[in-house]
């Protein structure tokens, strides 16, 4: 593990925000922290970048100059243009000159914002704001890029552009840690950490998490919930049988990563 959290606990007053959470971040690659609302994803990221002081455990991170961060809200100044936002970030990290200008233009072009560089941040749509904010976080070529729900509120096409950008920087050696509620995004990562109520339910590569799931899976249609261990998926139901024996009328199928995540949450709830 190059960076990350090891056995970290965080308390906000009497509330346990993180309970001995370990999130390893390897050099290059994408680590996804996935969980529902209130799971502790933002707290993991904020602890990683130094905004939250842990009560116990170890946090490893590069210096501030080598870290890029996108918070869950904002990310850019509404009363500055996209260009001015980029210039502010660039000068904060000591970037100047033609190389900086070239990098800014390349990044903006990759996310389709080069035509909007003169627009105020507050005049951009929500999705465009997130894209601009990711560009700002990437401008100084950080070694560790931490993104808190970068694709929330972003349309599918823009989400795809963002993932292309994120995958590209990961391939070039940047360690990326991002929080998301979208399970399909976690499936694209090199490693994932599934959080629920501040605890780690599962961790590892998406394939490893999938392999760790036992029991049988099936699908069914119908209005009412077939079994207690079933959940909606599209118009039908997904059923998990821990014993390996599916109820009658249920069509067996191979589970995918989303199924594995739901099962991990069900197991966590049952404990």
């Amino acid at each position, binding site marked *: 593990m190059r960076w990350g959290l090891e056995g970290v606990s*965080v*308390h*906000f*007053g009497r*509330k346990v925000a993180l309970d001995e959470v370990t999130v390893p971040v390897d050099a290059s690659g994408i680590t996804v922290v996935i969980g529902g609302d209130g799971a502790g994803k*933002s707290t993991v990221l*904020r602890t990683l*970048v*130094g*905004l*939250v*002081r842990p*009560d116990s455990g170890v946090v490893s991170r590069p*210096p*501030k*100059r080598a*870290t890029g*961060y996108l*918070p869950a*809200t*904002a*990310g*850019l*100044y*509404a009363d500055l243009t996209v260009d001015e936002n980029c210039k502010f*970030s660039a000068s*904060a*990290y*000591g970037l100047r000159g033609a190389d900086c200008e070239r990098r800014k233009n390349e990044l903006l072009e990759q996310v389709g914002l080069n035509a909007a560089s003169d627009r105020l941040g507050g005049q951009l749509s929500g999705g465009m704001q997130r894209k601009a904010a990711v560009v700002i976080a990437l401008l100084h070529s950080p070694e560790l890029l931490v993104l808190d729900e970068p694709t929330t509120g972003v349309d599918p096409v823009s989400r795809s552009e963002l993932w292309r950008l994120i995958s590209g920087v990961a391939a070039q050696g940047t360690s990326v840690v991002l929080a998301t509620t979208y399970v399909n995004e976690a499936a694209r990562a090199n490693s994932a950490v599934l959080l629920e109520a501040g605890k780690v339910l599962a961790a590892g590569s998406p394939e490893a998490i999938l392999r760790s799931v036992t029991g049988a899976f099936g699908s069914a249609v119908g209005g009412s919930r077939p079994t207690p261990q079933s959940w909606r998926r599209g118009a039908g139901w997904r059923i998990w049988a821990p014993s390996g024996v599916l109820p009658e009328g249920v069509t067996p199928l191979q589970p995918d990563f989303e199924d594995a995540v739901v099962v991990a949450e069900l197991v966590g709830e049952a404990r």
Partner: protein
Amino acid sequence: MWAMVAKEFRQLRRDHRTLAMMIALPILLLVVFGYAANFDVHNIPTVVVGPGARASASLLRAPFHVVEVDRAGNQSTAEACLRDGKAVVGLVTGDHGITVFIDGTQLFSAQTAESALAKARVSEEAAGLASLPVRVRVLFNPRLTTSWIMVPGLAGLILVFVGTLITSLGVVRERQAGTLEQLAVMPFRAWDVIAGKIAPYLIVALIDLIVILLIGMGIFHVPFRGNIAVFALGAALFLLVTLGLGVLISTVSQNQGQAIQLAIMSLLPQVLLSGFIFPVSSMAAGVRWISYVLPLTYFVEISRGVMLKATPISSLWGPIGLLALLGAAVFGLAIARFRRDLAPSTRVPQ
């Protein structure tokens, strides 16, 4: 409509600051206008100098309150006492009459003194008493022009407005927009953020100050008789306090509405109790102490002293020193709190 009324009451019940302001502000105004808003002057510090000082001092009655009797003193002594703020009236006795010097920068005291002297003269004449000739001279503001008194104080008010209110809004805007977190992650030192945030407001406040003074001097013919460096020192220290107050307010406010409320609550006592409008000496003792903790009180003393009386720095060390102390305390506290905002937190994120 009743649903709206009920909703508003619920929101108001949770908005403790607005509730506090709605209760505290009327009480403050009542106290101020009850005890502090007083143009009547009952106590005029008076210095009596010259060969007949003792005899003349024994004849003086209220509102004149003799603070010093100096038989060896002369006109220069009396003028110096007025210039340094030790007295408002200086009686210079001599063989050929009495000259009464009145400090024209203390508007209401000067008017009261003139009125009391005129009454005394009338009484003497009515009683058929022979008396030495008495000449009355108003120094520093001979025509008792109100604008000459207001403009130096207004300069301070502008600095309070820009330094406290506007600065607090500028800083809290970062918190409200969520960009303060990003600044904390960037390779800024806390001092870079603080200095960078307040520098524009400092520059604007200084420009405002110069404009106010130029307009005051050009249109209202307010004189600037003293040392500009002394005035600049006073203004700089005062700005330190007001900017520090602005940053401090921003660290305890979650949004711009709260910041405005707090800024107004800090601004109003300064307007009413600093001597800008109502003379401090006329305030009841129970509220007068508040004036002594307000920074504008000391800046008004410095600006009026330098502009109208050419008061030297040696006579202004008191207010300058107090402003420096206040500035160090307020600014120090503001920076400590602001650093906490930028440092790792153990609080629930807002």
